[in-house]
């Protein structure tokens, strides 16, 4: 094949109109000849770079020459923006995609089948923006949590205020009643509602489309108000280009505004101020509200100390980053019924990370293998309540530990999350040896799946109550019960014991002959963990959630 023939075939390949015979010829050359592959990569690069240039040319960039000299700016930085705290974790995907030799982290568990690689129904997320804050937001359909991706397609914010960050770096505050869609990181369509957009330099050229026309940002902040009858645009700072659907393009500078009729004709050469806070002011207000909420939570945890049922309450002190000791804040003073409390926890391998209030070092990250907090909980307990605030990165193990006793002996509890997102709780009944397999399996109380990868990185409160008197196991997520199951008479354990245990890991899986162990540490972080002797009521669980939820609205 001559170089020219090669180039022609590559063109045909990239234009998507190559014949099968030519495809096979080209493929054969690509396989055997590294030089041909290099030509292929060069040709692809040229396409990409030309496409970049072409799209720049389409943008009404006021400083095209400046962009041309700064080769790294412009679209290369389009994907700037987006704020959510992140903890480092293990590279599960890479391990999954690379050779088997890299799969050292895969689980080796004798008593269970190996972790499945769920490529078949791999969950996926789509979207171009993250919801980074909201006040009194009511969405049509399911609520969207802070930090979650905004789905593609039409969104209806019935009321309230939200702060949206597009992957391009554009920040928007949108007020309901609003109907809009995020078409791409550089384009939002709005049928109705008010919005204020702050557009950083790398995202210049961002467009907001309404029925009456388009607003193209030349930097930095503008507001729109759209309803069925009219659209108004007001420039808060910088400059925008307005393209009414009915007439020619025009520029609007700071302070200027225009009102358009629904058909795009200009009805007024000015616009009233649109009373909507900008993204920066919105975040300030959220932070202020959160800090007052934070103080309430601190007060509430002080009061919780004296709850006679509280056996252990671990919080991570951000001011003691060096300490490997986790002080049990439960107080033994004034215990009337003699409930003993747990000792302090010992932090092993877990590293400090940001807590749910945004404080550095206020949480423990358990994603590193071997990470755990060792605790000893004495006594026997008629019922048990476990609660923790957790941020899960991913559920990439068969079992993802929350709280496990060292072994799994009679009357000991195990609390973990399955890789399909179900919560797992069991208290091993005594005398199980002569039971059938089916009977043994009934000792585990699973919740329905509550977690999927779209919740990755979000703080969540989990609680499980083992109520002896009502013979009931209740799993709750963010204060709401997601399952209630009755405990069969035969399985009921009236006196639970714990002894030595680990938070977010399991100590049992060490095999005696070698150093291989089952990986069961949670790939995530915890900033609060509490154990109560006896059962908390549903209301008490809900209250714990409300007082501890940093996003409380």
């Amino acid at each position, binding site marked *: 094949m001559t170089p020219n023939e090669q180039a022609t075939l590559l063109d045909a390949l990239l234009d998507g109109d190559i014949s099968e015979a030519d495809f096979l010829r080209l493929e054969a050359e690509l396989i055997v000849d590294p030089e041909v592959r290099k030509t292929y990569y060069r040709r692809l690069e040229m396409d990409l770079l030309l496409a970049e240039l*072409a799209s720049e040319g389409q943008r009404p960039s006021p400083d095209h020459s400046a962009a041309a000299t700064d*080769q790294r700016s412009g679209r290369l930085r*389009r994907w700037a923006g987006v704020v959510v705290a992140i903890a480092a974790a293990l590279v599960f995907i890479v391990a999954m995609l690379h050779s088997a030799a890299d799969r050292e982290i895969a689980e080796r568990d004798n008593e269970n089948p190996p972790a499945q690689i769920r490529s078949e129904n791999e969950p996926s997320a789509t979207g171009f923006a993250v919801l980074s804050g909201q006040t009194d937001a009511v969405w049509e359909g399911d609520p969207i949590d802070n930090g979650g991706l905004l789905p593609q397609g039409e969104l209806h914010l019935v009321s309230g205020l939200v702060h949206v960050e597009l992957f391009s770096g554009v920040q928007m505050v949108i007020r309901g009643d609003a109907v809009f869609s995020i078409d791409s990181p550089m384009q939002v369509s709005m049928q109705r509602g008010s919005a204020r957009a702050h557009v950083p330099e*790398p995202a210049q050229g961002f467009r907001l489309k309404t029925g009456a026309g388009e607003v193209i940002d030349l930097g930095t902040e503008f507001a729109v108000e759209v309803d069925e009858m009219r659209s108004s645009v007001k420039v808060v700072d910088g400059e925008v280009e307005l393209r009414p659907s009915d007439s020619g393009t025009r520029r609007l500078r700071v302070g200027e505004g225009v009102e358009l009729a629904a058909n795009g004709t200009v009805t007024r050469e000015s616009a009233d101020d649109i009373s909507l806070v900008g993204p920066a002011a919105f975040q300030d207000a959220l932070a202020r509200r959160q800090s007052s909420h934070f103080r309430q939570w601190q007060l509430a945890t002080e009061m919780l100390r004296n709850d006679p049922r509280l056996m252990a309450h671990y919080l991570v002190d951000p001011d003691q980053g060096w300490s490997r000791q986790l002080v049990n804040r439960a107080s033994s003073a004034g215990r009337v019924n003699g409930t003993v409390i747990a000792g302090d926890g010992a932090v092993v391998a877990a590293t400090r990370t940001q807590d749910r209030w945004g404080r550095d070092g206020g949480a423990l990250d358990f994603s590193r293998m071997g990470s755990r907090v060792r605790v000893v909980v004495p006594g026997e307990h008629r019922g048990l309540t476990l609660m923790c605030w957790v941020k899960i990165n991913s559920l990439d193990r068969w079992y993802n530990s929350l709280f496990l006793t060292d072994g799994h002996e009679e009357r000991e509890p195990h609390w973990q999350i399955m890789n399909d997102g179900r919560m797992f709780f069991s208290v091993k009944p005594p005398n199980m040896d002569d039971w059938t397999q089916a009977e043994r399996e009934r000792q585990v109380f699973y919740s329905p799946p509550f977690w999927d990868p779209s919740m990755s990185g979000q703080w969540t409160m989990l609680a499980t109550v083992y109520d002896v008197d009502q013979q009931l196991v209740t799993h709750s997520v963010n204060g709401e019960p997601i399952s209630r199951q009755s405990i069969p008479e035969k399985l009921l354990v009236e006196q639970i014991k714990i002894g030595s245990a680990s938070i977010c890991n399991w100590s049992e899986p060490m095999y005696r002959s070698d150093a291989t162990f089952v990986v069961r540490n949670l790939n995530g972080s915890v900033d609060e963990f509490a154990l109560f002797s006896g059962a908390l009521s549903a209301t008490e669980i809900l209250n714990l959630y409300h007082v501890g939820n940093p996003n409380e609205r």
Partner: protein
Amino acid sequence: MNQPPDDDSAQPTPLGDSAFVALLTECQLPLRLYISALLPGDPAAGDVIQQANAKIWEKRGDFEAGTNFKAWTMAVARFEVLNHRKRQARDSRLRFSDELEETIATELAEVNDDLAERQAALRECMQSLKPASRDLLMRRYASQQSLAEFADQLGRSVGGIKVTLHRLRTSLGDCIQRRLAATGDRQ
């Protein structure tokens, strides 16, 4: 108590939000190159790139600071390519053999990219083209149309357009090589 060895040397550091976004932003062109190389001529490649970005963002917690970010994003992207193929299972589009894909994936992940330099060179080379040629290239690359539709719109034959574009790309490619070589000499 049997504890796994506590190895402090392997302590991961959490990667901050803005650091992650900066890495992801830097990686956009290599990522697009990679996905386009595995899906040559597929008009849906843009969607797959978008999808891969969303996935990378979603999996950001899994990235271990200090490891090769580009390789990591490409591993995620590879998966998105496979997913795309699965969705398009009935599409009879031609695709490279697994063997070739593997080679491309490896080479592109390792290649020391000088895309920014190439982009600068290309900008300058564009200036040396006749305005009409420049305009044609820009229109072609800005359009989402097939080559036939594009030719139709211009009132030209598909074959003619193909040849013109091919010549323009070749001369641009040569120009870029010369400029890069010249820059290299000066350094």
